[in-house]
């Protein structure tokens, strides 16, 4: 775990982790000295050895470690049981959180990356390629934020350009032709806002993806693994089944963007208020019907145990691909259309109740 990146609400956990590390180092040193002595080498510090002779010391250290571990687990459980939405956003942005390439390495075999949109270039902010996941052949499409500084800059921190979205669509069409399911992993603060991006049609690229994904004739399964920022996220998330990792967020705008507009300024306090108002957590999105499932993360978030997060992700994706396997291409398209068609909160006012009863009776029956 990066020592420099600390979530303020994890302060107690970090304190415990430091004490744990100390205790472990002490125990290690103790055992090493005991071992060295056992090897028959004379110690240069007999006085210290005298002190360490007592095996009770090692036992008491072990007990301390056990106790600290339990306390750490309990503290993490307490902290994570009640994260507010702004804290969730910050967990979703944790630099050690597994990214698309990490998950590909963990859950896919025989990954064969495919590059380029055949029009402009190859956007590293979206990774695409063929892979095997459990018994399935799949096309993986996912945002990549980047791990090293160099990779982050190349990926624009996960903000894709139009060529990224066009690459994604090109590879999804290939999957359709091959008859293999598509798995998309969403992790972006939003599509890139820049001169080149606008010039090359950022809006058009996303719009076309929305339209075309809706009629692709193979199963599409999407998971928001970290950040699900607006159109940039949705641009690869028009799927038959959509899930969020427990500490991911998904919303029409980032809390900072929302705060800057509606609260006139983005600071810690307004960001927090905006995050709350936007209902961006996995639970809220599930309640609104925007996602179909929440994938549980290990205790204290995916960054604490990426392997376990990977296993949970793989299990859910596999199950969905299997379940969707029974649908015909027509049924898949219909299923996806219905999934998005029903979303929204609209009150149908009866014409009588309408003060502005502008509805006029049409031959076709306009009260639909």
């Amino acid at each position, binding site marked *: 775990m990066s020592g420099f990146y600390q979530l303020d609400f994890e302060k107690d956990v970090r304190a415990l982790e430091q004490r744990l590390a100390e205790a472990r180092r002490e125990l290690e040193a103790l055992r090493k000295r005991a071992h060295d002595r056992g090897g028959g080498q004379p110690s240069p510090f007999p006085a210290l050895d005298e002190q360490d002779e007592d095996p009770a010391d090692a036992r008491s250290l072990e007990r301390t470690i056990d106790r600290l571990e339990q306390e750490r687990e309990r503290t993490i459980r307490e902290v994570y049981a009640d994260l507010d939405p702004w804290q969730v956003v910050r967990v979703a942005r944790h630099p050690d959180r597994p990214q698309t390439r990490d998950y590909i390495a963990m859950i896919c075999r025989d990954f064969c990356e495919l590059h380029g949109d055949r029009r402009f270039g190859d956007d590293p902010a979206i990774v695409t390629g063929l892979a095997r996941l459990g018994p399935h052949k799949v096309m993986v499409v996912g945002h990549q934020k980047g791990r090293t500084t160099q990779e982050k800059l190349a990926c624009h921190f996960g903000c894709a350009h139009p060529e990224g979205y066009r690459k994604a669509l090109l590879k999804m069409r290939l999957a359709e032709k091959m008859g293999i399911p598509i798995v998309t992993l969403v992790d972006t603060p939003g599509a890139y806002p820049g*001169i080149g991006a*606008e010039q090359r049609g950022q*809006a058009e690229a996303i719009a076309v993806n929305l339209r075309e994904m809706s009629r692709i004739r193979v199963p599409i399964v999407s998971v928001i693994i970290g950040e699900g920022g607006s159109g940039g996220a949705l641009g690869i998330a028009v799927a038959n089944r959509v899930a969020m990792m427990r500490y991911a967020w998904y919303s029409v705008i980032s809390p900072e963007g929302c705060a800057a507009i509606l609260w006139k300024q983005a600071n810690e306090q307004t960001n927090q208020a905006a995050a709350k108002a936007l209902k961006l957590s996995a639970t809220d999105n599930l309640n*609104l019907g925007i996602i179909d499932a929440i994938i549980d993360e290990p205790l204290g978030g995916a960054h604490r145990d990426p392997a376990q997060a990977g296993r949970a992700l793989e299990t859910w994706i596999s199950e969905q691909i299997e379940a969707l396997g029974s649908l015909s291409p027509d049924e898949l398209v219909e299923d996806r259309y219905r999934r998005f068609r029903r979303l*929204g*909160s*609209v009150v*149908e*006012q009866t014409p009588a109740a309408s003060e502005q009863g502008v509805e006029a009776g049409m031959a076709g029956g306009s009260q639909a």
Partner: protein
Amino acid sequence: MTQATSKTWVDVKSGRRNAIPEGLWMRCPGSDCGQMIYKRHVEANLHVCPECGHHFRVGAVERVAQLADEGSFVEMFGHLVPGDPLGFEDLRRYTDRLAGEQLKTGRHDAVMAGEAFIKGRQAMLCCLDLSFMMGSMGSVVGEVITRTIERAIERRLPLVIVSGSGGARMQESGLSLMQMAKTSAALARLDDAGGLFISVLTDPTTGGVTASFAMLGDIIIAEPGALIGFAGPRVIQQTIRQELPDGFQRSEFLLDAGLIDRVVPRKDLRTEIARFIDYGG
């Protein structure tokens, strides 16, 4: 109509706010104009400056009146009203904001759709309403657009959508976002059915509206000088920390970039739309 109350749209240059002040005379905000113009002349000229051709923003009611043959427009889906699915509250409650906008405009939400004749050609016509929360797309706007598209498929009519919008409506968060997918998916069905979709972009068209149905027209035309883009100029400037080129994200810029078919002055919109419908058979 004033737009100073709108709080949902960040990209208005301060000089362009209050595009239509009260009073008999007003100063044209056009970049090279600045003339005092008689308001009635502007209104008679389809809300275009008679001096320089600056296109003022117009709401949906005015837009429909400009495009549809007189008396031909039959409004549909006007009975759909917005809820407050999130219980959203910023400095004001969403429900209060909605009530204020409804009182101001006499409309339920930021959209007006129905069947109309345009120069004698029958079509489904849908206009976003800039005067209502900056034309932002929430559930009602998305639902009305989707139903209009479905009706166009059912009745085999060409579809005309006039966009003017700050983007997806933040107050409905994820549900607003989903309207982008919903409307785009409906357009895939229209496309499958061989229907013609003419998308008209007006000042401003940004965010989630541009990134969904607005850029999916079989034919895309824009009024002169309209701001059209995905991200707003301010956000772009903050991200790249460079001056933006002159005319960036204006209709003419998009034409140069190959993103739209034509730039059409307001006075010619009816004729051009009718012409496309004719070509579409």
